[in-house]
């Protein structure tokens, strides 16, 4: 289980996260909803070790503290991140991106089998393994980013706004793929603005506002939640 306790984070004077507590079980799919600037991305960055939280032991993986670890060690703990926007190395081919995805020592064993498995999940990428990623469409690049992250053999895959800037039909395809990833037993922690589709794959969700968790519940409950409906689903 990946747990976050009382996590606070500042950028200068700005309090980006204010006592956030979340948890995600192995194999679970959890979505974090919230407006721009609510602190969703900061939460993922803090877990990934990219930003240092205020103090104390606030992030635990299976009971072991991981807050404060340098970011390059996080993948070897079984936590992968697909960052917002650029999750790929555009100058490299698909195959080379996957090779780098398996950089950590954790990912080296069984790398070949995982590559085959990833290509089964993303048959389109298998056809284009020698193509330079820059020359691919936005949706395909996002697939490469996810495939790259999966090569690190994660137990927990964090995705920061995976649907950002993609056409609706591509978003649908992307979330179908995420559904297949989920079936392989990888836990997904998704930050999304596209509430409808992310709730359709999620087990549970959190609502964030101004750096705090202001609500949580099962995906079905959140869909019925009036605050969610008003703020995100365009219902009165």
């Amino acid at each position, binding site marked *: 289980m990946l747990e976050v306790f009382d996590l606070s984070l500042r950028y200068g004077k700005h309090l980006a996260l204010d006592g956030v507590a979340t948890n995600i079980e192995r194999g679970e799919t959890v979505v974090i909803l919230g407006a721009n600037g609510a602190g969703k991305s900061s939460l993922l960055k803090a877990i990934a070790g990219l930003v240092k939280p205020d103090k104390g032991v606030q992030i635990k993986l299976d009971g072991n503290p991981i807050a404060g670890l340098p970011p390059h060690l996080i*993948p070897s703990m079984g936590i992968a991140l697909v960052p917002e926007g650029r999750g790929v190395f555009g100058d490299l081919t698909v195959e080379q991106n996957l090779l780098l995805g398996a950089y*950590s020592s954790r990912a080296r064993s069984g790398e070949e089998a995982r590559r085959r498995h990833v290509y089964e999940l993303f048959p389109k990428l298998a056809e284009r393994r020698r193509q330079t990623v820059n*020359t691919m469409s936005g949706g395909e690049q996002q697939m490469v980013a996810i495939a790259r992250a999966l090569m690190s053999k994660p137990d927990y895959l964090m995705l920061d706004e995976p649907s950002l800037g993609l056409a609706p039909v591509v978003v649908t395809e992307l979330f179908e793929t995420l559904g297949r990833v989920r079936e392989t037993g990888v836990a997904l922690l998704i930050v999304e603005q596209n509430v409808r589709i992310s709730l359709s794959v999620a087990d549970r969700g959190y609502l964030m506002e101004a750096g705090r968790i202001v609500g949580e519940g099962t995906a079905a409950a959140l869909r019925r939640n009036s605050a969610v409906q008003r703020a995100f689903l365009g219902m009165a």
Partner: protein
Amino acid sequence: MNGRLALVFAVALVALAALAFAPFYLGRYQIGLLIGLTGYVTLASAWALFSGPTRYVSLATVAFFGIGAYTVAALNEVLPYPLVLAAAAAIGLAVALVVGLSTLRLAGVYFVIFTFGLAELVRQLVTWYEVNVTGTLGRYIFMSFGPEQIYWQLLALMTITLLISWWIGRNRLGLALKVIGDDEVVATHCGIDIARTKLALFALSAVIITLVGAIQAPRWTYVEPGIVFNPTLSFLTLIMALLGGANRLWGPALGAVPLFLLFEWLSARFPDHYSIILGLLFILIVFVLPGGVAAFAERTFGQRKPDPQTYGAESALSRDTADARR
């Protein structure tokens, strides 16, 4: 693919053998030229080893080159030659680690300026030490071997440098280095320890450069800081690597050979205007061939797609369009 690789290796081996036997057929002047050539090919390749993929433009080349040369000057009568070389390499490594640890977090132009300052700092420190502690400025190097031995040592070092570049280029480490230049954040997410990788490569490159200085030192007989810490060497190395293409195995060599011969000719023919011509050439190369000859040739003649891993405007353009598509 493997057949092709074997062929390339065979050709390289024949060329190496021919180069190794060359001194038996050549006069002193030509051997001197070969020493200069191998020296600069090694310097440019070692420079590109670190600066090519990471895009950290280093002007510290002469700092390490000078450290190598000065170590030989200071120790040549104290220690046997192999130990002198080892000492030079060790000092180069130590300086590279200290400098690397303190500067590799600097980005872009700050790194360039720091490395340029470093070369000057080392030179001033050596000068200060010689004036205030030893009381002399200038040392003599007496070695019992001739220019052929210097040449063979450089040839061996050049071969090792090219082999290292080749090995890194086809290794996961080579890819990792490339993407550090592209996007440090995503690279970190892959589990690449960026700081350590950069430091290791910087140190490796610096040790090779130090050894070039150490091996070439006996050519001078008389050495003083102004000679071995001449900043022109840093600029020459940089422009050679850029001309050839810093991201290709053969790129730096491709730039070093013609430029060295050209400079040799220019300095003999126009000794007074040499620096002016040099400056103009620098400008010309950066404007006309920003990605280097190797990338240019591939774009023009090859079926290979243009490699966006260049310094050119084209890569920035292709990246922008890719962004726009997202």
